[in-house]
């Protein structure tokens, strides 16, 4: 097949994408998050979710959890590119490591009265969401779970008067006694 006249290979090849969750342990210093995000934007990688917080303040360590999508070759590149950064201690692919737990927290505001309000409360109960704020015409629910569960809850709230959602992004940790 003729491609346009360029030395670069211009045809796209279709390799199926995979979604991986990466845990990245970094030195907590100025600019480290910009470095990580810049790597993704600069090299055209996807960020589906990103969560970051200091986890060991005495050692000045932060943990970044990134959910990303790409071909297996791209995922491998992302891990190597992260790992070679100076302030990065470790990169663990939680998806490949298996046996990991992923959680997200969302706060969901729903406005309504009458049947809708009752139904929202009943569903919240079923999803083990807690009411953390209430007025006579609204609730704020706090819900924790994996991404799919939260998506499902939000979808259910939509016809019942969903106002807005605030989500933390995914945090992940391995099962069992070992650290990353």
């Amino acid at each position, binding site marked *: 097949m003729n491609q346009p006249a360029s030395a670069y290979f211009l045809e796209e090849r279709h390799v199926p994408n995979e979604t991986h969750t990466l845990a990245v342990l*970094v030195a907590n210093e100025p600019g480290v998050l910009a470095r990580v995000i810049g790597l993704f934007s600069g090299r055209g990688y996807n960020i589906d979710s990103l969560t970051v917080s200091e986890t060991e303040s005495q050692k000045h360590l932060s943990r970044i959890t990134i959910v990303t999508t790409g071909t297996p070759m791209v995922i491998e590149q992302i891990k190597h590119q992260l790992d070679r950064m100076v302030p990065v201690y470790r990169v663990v692919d939680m998806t490949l490591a298996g046996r990991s737990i992923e959680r997200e927290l969302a706060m969901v505001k729903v406005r309504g009265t009458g049947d809708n309000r009752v139904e929202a409360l009943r569903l919240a109960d079923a999803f083990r969401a807690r009411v953390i704020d209430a007025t006579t015409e609204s609730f704020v629910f706090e819900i924790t779970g994996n991404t799919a569960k939260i998506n499902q809850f939000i979808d259910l709230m939509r016809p019942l008067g969903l106002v807005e959602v605030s989500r933390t992004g995914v945090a992940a940790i391995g099962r069992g006694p070992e650290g990353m």
Partner: protein
Amino acid sequence: MTEKSHDPNQMTGAAMIVRALIDHGVEHLFGYPGGAVLPIYDEIFQQSEVEHILVRHEQGAGHAAEGYARSTGKPGVVLVTSGPGATNMVTPLTDALMDSIPLVCITGQVPTHLIGNDAFQECDTVGITRPCTKHNWLVRDVNDLAKVLHEAFYVASSGRPGPVVVDVPKDVQFATGTYHPPRRSDVHVSYAPRVKGDATQIRKAVALLAGAKRPVIYSGGGVINSGREAAKLLRELVEVTGFPITSTLMGLGAYPASGKNWLGMLGMHGTYEANMTMHDCDVMLCVGARFDDRITGRTDAFSPGSKKIHIDIDPSSINKNIRVDVPIIGDAGNILGDLLTVFRAEAKKPDIRAWWQQIAQWRARNSLSYKKHNDIILPQFAIQKLFEMTRGRDTYITTEVGQHQMWAAQFYGFEEPHRWMTSGGLGTMGYGLPSAIGVQVAHRDSLVIDIAGDASVQMTIQEMSTAVQHDLPIKIFILNNQYMGMVRQWQQLLHGNRLSHSYTEALPDFVKLADAYGCVGIQAIKPSDLEGAIKEMISVKKPVLFDCRVAALENCFPMIPSGKAHNEMLLPEQATDEATATAFAGGKALV
């Protein structure tokens, strides 16, 4: 307080910077002063251990430091001011990142309390240079400065070398703090590049090499960066195995061009034999190269039948473009040493006579041939002549970017590593002249020649003034065809011969320009002029602008056409108008 003032390690930030340079063995510094680095310049004025080379534009300082680094193996050091000083460094920093050149760039910054206020000559230096450095730092406390400077030198020169930036606000330069000499704990514990190769992988590699029937060694800039020992070991490996060897643009000189196993450079403008050997091989040993798109051509047709061994210090180079079978992560020299030991102990030179016979047939195609001319200087001929006349001398070659660069790579025979400086990854026109300055600073008595093009050389020509000021007798050998030759070549081959803005309608008179700068101008118009003119250029003890008028429309072959594989090269004798039209059929897209 009085006691403290006697402590020799108490000093200003500016003094710490100069002290750290001395502690890291820096003898030369390339830079340009400005408001935000004046305290450092004041310290430089008051000492004599570090020699400062004043350039005319910060980009020149960056490329000079690159040339210095590549010809010595030591990091190049640059000092520039905030704002435009820093932004002018972006090109050399990116260039150094792409070609893995160790640079330490110190930038001045506006005082800490003004950062973020859009102060005069303020820019977000660490933000701007983050994607074009291996790492960078903004130092907000003078007591962190020593640690950061020492870490900067370590990060720049260890692992896969690269550029780093240390941004120092002016108040930090004035402030007094405690300096300490370099120590281990200065470096992030998270930064520990792997040097030694995995023994199991090395054993697997040896087994593949020993069983090869159609092997090839493909070496790159990593062998040069690893140091002289790596090049020596590479030569030993070629000797012990008897394998053919080709190299990337960046790797030229690691194996001597006069060596009997040398195939020439590979890739887009590589030799036919090198590319065919790569395509048809059954075992490929890649050492310190990264399967760049200018090397592989079409990736899905790249060396389809081979098992690939890849030695690289950067794990992110493995499986980036091409899947390999045996990756070995570590330093090229270190791994080549181990590989040789295992090969000698456990393997024999395989019999590859049939493979060499095949290679001889490809060689016979004589892919670098060109039609000689009596009246007009052909650029290939000019470089061959230059090579003949400088052969055996202590010569360093730099280049700009374009056709002349490819011809230099094809026709100048490099016998030793660290003798060839060219902008490979980024392809920076204007690299060669300042780079030659850096090389000459490091090697005062050597012959340093920038093989240039008339378009490229004008991008940094102001640095001739630097060469004159610092008494650096660099030779700028301009292959003047009055075109941006490579751009024109692509327009001819790929864009229907519509020569859009690739002709320089107003070129300066380079001989008069040389005169204006206070250096020497030489011109050659006929092939018969060349020998005498080159002789004169070599003997002149001043900087020279050599205006070599060459055939205007000569093109660079052989060439792998668009989206084609290694075995679909276009050879010079096939490059008739009709053949090129067919080979490059299709639509248009930018490079």
